[in-house]
C-alpha cells in the first residue's frame, strides 16, 4: 500500500521543522547524541526521496529503545533538561518515521511544541524567542497545509499561498499580549526543578577545587548587569561582586558555608552605594551583590558573612535595587565565624603549615605576616597563568613551593590556608570582579569570564579584611582588561565588532529588564496600580460604555426616514380613531377609502397624494403639511345618497 504522505508537502515541512528544532540543540548536546538524532532524521529524508522504506513496527520499537538508551547514557543527569530534550527529540524523530494518518502529524506537532519549550528553557534570549516564533509560524503553516489538502503541489508553492497564516498570527497578537499580562501567574512553583542545577548556569559552584573556574574564563556569557549607581559608579577594579563564602577546606576543595542571618543595618548616609542589578536566570540559592552588601530587595536572607541566601534553588531573571556600604564593613565577630575560620584538615600540606608558623613568629603581628605573604607572592617567582601544571596530593605545598603558577583560585586558596595554618581566621570568597562598561545603556555587564576568587582575613581591630592575592601577583589581571576598554572608549577607537557587541548586549539588557522579569509580583503590582485608577479610568470607561448606545441611537435617529415615520403616524392615528380602517393597504387605496368613509376625507386624501408625490415624484415638492385631523363620519356616506 502506498503511503500518500510521502509526496505530500506537509511531510517536507515536518522534516524541515524537525531539523530546525534540532539545530540549536547543537549548543548543548553531546556529539554522539547529535549524530544519532541526525541519522534518525536522515532516515525520514531517505524515505521521502525513495531510498529507504519506513521501519516496520517491531524494528521501530527496538530502534527507539536503543537510541533512547544511547542518548540517555550520554547524559550526566538522567532526567535533567538536557536528557529530557534529547529524549524528546528521539520521540519526535521516531514519530516522524511513522506517519500514516493525519493524526500522526498532530502527535508529531505535540513533540515539536515541547521541543520549542525545551529550547526556551535552555536559552531565553531575545534571538531564541525570534527563532521559536519562526518555528511556531512554521507549525501554523503545517496545519494549513494539512487542511488545504493539496497533496500534489510542491512545498515552496504551497508556502507562497500561505500568507493568510501571517494575517492570522497578527490577529492573534493582541490576545497574546492580553493573556501574557493578565493570565494569573504562579506565586510559587508547583513542583521542584528538573533543570540541571549541578551545571549551574552562571558556572560558580558552591565548592572550589583547583581547576574549577578555568571553564568560566573562556565563557563570555553575561551573568548580570548593573546600573544607576548612586552617588557614583566606583572604578571598575573596585567592583568586587560577592557571591559565596567558602569556609570549609578538606585538603583539596573549599566548600561553602554561611552564618546566621543578620539584621539589616543602616550605614552612614555618605557611605551608601545604591545601584540596580538585573540578573539573568541561573541555578543556585546564592545571589550576587557588591561588596559589602547592606540591604536590598532580594527575596532572600542576608547573612552575617555578607551572603544572600535564597530559599529557592533557581533564580529567575529579575531586576533588583540593592544597597552596599562603600567602606564600613560593620561585620561583627561571630563565634562560629572564628572557629570556622580556623578549620583545617587534620593532615596534609605539612610544609606550608610549618612555614606559616615560622613566618608568623618572625613577623610578630598577623597584619605584618599578611603583608609579608603578599610581598612574597609579589617578589618571588610566582606567575599568573590560566594553564597551570596539575597539582599533587598536597595542593597548597605543591603550589607554594613547586609550581608557583596559577590563577586567582590558587592564590586565594593558598593565602587562606597559610593564614589558617598560622592561626589567623581566613576564608575564600568567590564572585566576579569588575565588568565591562556599556556606554550605550550606561551600565556594567558582568560575564562569566569575570569570575574571581579572593580571600578575607580576620585582623583584630579591623575585622574581616578583603585581600586579593591575585592583585599582588598580577595586577594586570585586574587592570589590563579594564584599561584596554577605557583606552578604546576615551580615544574613540571603537572597532565595528566592539560596537556591535555593545549594541547586542544593550538589546539583551533591555530584553531582560522589560520582558524576562515579568512575574507574579510585577503582575500583582501592575493590577494593583490599575486598581488605583477607578476614580479616573474606570469612571471614564463606564461613561464611555454608557455613551456608546447613546451615540448609536443618535446616529440612527439622524439617518431616520422622516417620510416613513409620517406614514406610520398616519397609520397609528387612523387606527386609533377608526379601528376598522384598512391601514395595511397602499396609499392610493387608503386615499380612496378615506374619501368615502371619513369626514373631511378629501383633505386626508390630498395629504396622502402629497405624501406620494414626495415619496415617488420628482424632487422639489414642498414639505408635507401636518396631518389633518381625522374624524369619523357620523353616518355612512351611502345614506347621504
Amino acid at each position, binding site marked *: 500500500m502506498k503511503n500518500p504522505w510521502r509526496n505530500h508537502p506537509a511531510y517536507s515541512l515536518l522534516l524541515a521543522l524537525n531539523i530546525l528544532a534540532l539545530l540549536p540543540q547543537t549548543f548543548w548536546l553531546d556529539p554522539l547524541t547529535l549524530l544519532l538524532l541526525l541519522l534518525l532524521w536522515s532516515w525520514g529524508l531517505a524515505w521521502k526521496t525513495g531510498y529507504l522504506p519506513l521501519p516496520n513496527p517491531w524494528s521501530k520499537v527496538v530502534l527507539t529503545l536503543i537510541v533512547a538508551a544511547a542518548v540517555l547514557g550520554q547524559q550526566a543527569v538522567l532526567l535533567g533538561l538536557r536528557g529530557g530534550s534529547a529524549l524528546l527529540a528521539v520521540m519526535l524523530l521516531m514519530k516522524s518515521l511513522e506517519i500514516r494518518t493525519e493524526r500522526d502529524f498532530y502527535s508529531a506537532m505535540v513533540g515539536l511544541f515541547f521541543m520549542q519549550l525545551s529550547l526556551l528553557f535552555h536559552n531565553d534570549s531575545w534571538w531564541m524567542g525570534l527563532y521559536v516564533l519562526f518555528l511556531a509560524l512554521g507549525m501554523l503553516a503545517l496545519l494549513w497545509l494539512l487542511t488545504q489538502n493539496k497533496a500534489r503541489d510542491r512545498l515552496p508553492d504551497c508556502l507562497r499561498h500561505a500568507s493568510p497564516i501571517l494575517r*492570522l*498570527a497578527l490577529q492573534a497578537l493582541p490576545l497574546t499580549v492580553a493573556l501574557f499580562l493578565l493570565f494569573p501567574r504562579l506565586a510559587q512553583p508547583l513542583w521542584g526543578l528538573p533543570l540541571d542545577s549541578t551545571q549551574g548556569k552562571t558556572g560558580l559552584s558552591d565548592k572550589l577545587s583547583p581547576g574549577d573556574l578555568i571553564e568560566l574564563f573562556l565563557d563570555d556569557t553575561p551573568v548580570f548587569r548593573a546600573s544607576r549607581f548612586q552617588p557614583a559608579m566606583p572604578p571598575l577594579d573596585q567592583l568586587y561582586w560577592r557571591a559565596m563564602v567558602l569556609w570549609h577546606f578538606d585538603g583539596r576543595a573549599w566548600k561553602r558555608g554561611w552564618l546566621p542571618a543578620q539584621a539589616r543595618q543602616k550605614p552612614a548616609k555618605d557611605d551608601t552605594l545604591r545601584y540596580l542589578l538585573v540578573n539573568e536566570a541561573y541555578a543556585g540559592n546564592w545571589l550576587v551583590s557588591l561588596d559589602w552588601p547592606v540591604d536590598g530587595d532580594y527575596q532572600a536572607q542576608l547573612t552575617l558573612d555578607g551572603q544572600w541566601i535564597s530559599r529557592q534553588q533557581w533564580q529567575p531573571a529579575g531586576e533588583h535595587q540593592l544597597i552596599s556600604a562603600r567602606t564600613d564593613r560593620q561585620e561583627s565577630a561571630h563565634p562560629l565565624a572564628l572557629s570556622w575560620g580556623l578549620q583545617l584538615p587534620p593532615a596534609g600540606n605539612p610544609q606550608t603549615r610549618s612555614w606559616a608558623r615560622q613566618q608568623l613568629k618572625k613577623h610578630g603581628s598577623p597584619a605584618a605576616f599578611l603583608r609579608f605573604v603578599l610581598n612574597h607572592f609579589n617578589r618571588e617567582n610566582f606567575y599568573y597563568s590560566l594553564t597551570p601544571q596539575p597539582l599533587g596530593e598536597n595542593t597548597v605545598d605543591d603550589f607554594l613551593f613547586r609550581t608557583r603558577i596559577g590563577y586567582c583560585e590558587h592564590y586565594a586558596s593558598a593565602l587562606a590556608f597559610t593564614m589558617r595554618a598560622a592561626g589567623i581566621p581566613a576564608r575564600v570568597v568567590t564572585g566576579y570582579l569588575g565588568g565591562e562598561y556599556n556606554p550605550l545603556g550606561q551600565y556594567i555587564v558582568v560575564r562569566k569570564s569575570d569570575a574571581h576568587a579572593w580571600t578575607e582575613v580576620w585582623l583584630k581591630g579591623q575585622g574581616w579584611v578583603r585581600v586579593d592575592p591575585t592583585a599582588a601577583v598580577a595586577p594586570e589581571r585586574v587592570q589590563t582588561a579594564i584599561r584596554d576598554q577605557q583606552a578604546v572608549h576615551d580615544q574613540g577607537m571603537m572597532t565595528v565588532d566592539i560596537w556591535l557587541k555593545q549594541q547586542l548586549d544593550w538589546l539583551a539588557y533591555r530584553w531582560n529588564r522589560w520582558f524576562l522579569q515579568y512575574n507574579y509580583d510585577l503582575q500583582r503590582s501592575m493590577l494593583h496600580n490599575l486598581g488605583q485608577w477607578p476614580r479616573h479610568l474606570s469612571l471614564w470607561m463606564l461613561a464611555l460604555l454608557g455613551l456608546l448606545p447613546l451615540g448609536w441611537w443618535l446616529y440612527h435617529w439622524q439617518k431616520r426616514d422622516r417620510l416613513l415615520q409620517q406614514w406610520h403616524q398616519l397609520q397609528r392615528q387612523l387606527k386609533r380613531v377608526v379601528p376598522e380602517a384598512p391601514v395595511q393597504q397602499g396609499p392610493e387605496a387608503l386615499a380612496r377609502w378615506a374619501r368615502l368613509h371619513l369626514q373631511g376625507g378629501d383633505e386626508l386624501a390630498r395629504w396622502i397624494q402629497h405624501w406620494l408625490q414626495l415619496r415617488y415624484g420628482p424632487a422639489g415638492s414642498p414639505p408635507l403639511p401636518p396631518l389633518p385631523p381625522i374624524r369619523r363620519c357620523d353616518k355612512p356616506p351611502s345614506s347621504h345618497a
Partner: protein
Amino acid sequence: MNLDSIAPSGRMDRLTMKRAGKTLPWQPDRRQLFILPTRGGIILGIALLFMLLGSLNYNNNLAIALTFFMTSCLLVSAIWTHRHLQDCRLLELQALPVHAGESLKIRLFWQPPETSYLPEIQGLNLQVARHDNHIDLLLPTHHRGWLKLPPLKLTSRYPLGLFVAWSWWRYSRKLLIWPAVEIQPPPLPRLQTVPAKSNYPFSQGDLTELQRWQAGDPMSRVAWKILARHGQWLSRHPEGENESHGPLLLREEDTGLRDREAAISRLTAWILEAERLSIPYGLELRGQPSIAPALGEAHLTCCLERLALA
C-alpha cells in the same frame, strides 16, 4: 424506501439538523452554524495546557508567551472557521425533471468564500461534486410524486483544521418526479373514438409501414438502418396511422392492469409514445376529470404531472 426515513448518523447531526436552513438563496445564520474542535484541535489544546503548566511553573516568560501565542492562534482560527462558513451562499437551484428510477441531476449554484479552500458538502444518499460556482448533486429517485431534497451538510475546517464548523440546509420546496416509464409497453390502444372497429383494444401497432420519405416527416421516423444499408430515404409509419389521425383518449381502464403503479407506468409510456408519434392524446384517470386530447410540450408536462401526483 423513502429518503425522509434516512436519519443522519450522529447524535450531533440529529440535534443540529433541526436548525437547517430552508430557503434559497441562503446564507448560514449564526443560529444555524455550529462549531466544535476537531480531534487535532483537542490534541493540540491538551498539549498547550501542559505547556502552560510547565512554563508557568518556571515563570519562563518566553515559554509563556509562546504558549499564549499558539493558544491565541487556535482561538482566532476558530473565528476564521466560523466566518468562512458564514460567507458561503447558496444561490439558485436547477434541476430537470426525471422519471422515477432515474438519477436526478441537480445543479446548485453557490458562492463559496474567496479562499483556496472550498467548504465540503455532504448529503445523505447522494453524490456531490463541488465546483467553483456550482455544486452538482446526483440523487437516485425511487418514487413518482413530490421529492424532498435530502439535507445537505456544509462543513469547513478552514484555515488550520483545528475546528470544524457545519451547517445544515434542507430545501423546503419539493421537486416533482415523474412516474417511471414501463420498459416494454404494449402498443397504443386503438382509437377510442371508434371502438367498434376492432375487437382488440390494441392491434399490431408494432407493425410499421415503410414509405418514401417526404419533406415534413419527422427525423425520428427516418429508417436509419435502411438508409445506412441501402442509401434509401424511407420513413416509418405505424400501421393504420394514416387512416386514424383522430385523437386518442388514454384511460386508466384501458391499461387492463389492476395495480395502480403499473397502470400509471403504462399510461406514462403511452403518453410519451403518442407524443413521439404526434398523435393527439388525452388522459383520463379514475376519479379525476379528463384532460382533453392535445399535443405539445406543455400538454405533455401537464399530463405527466397529473400522472405523477395521481
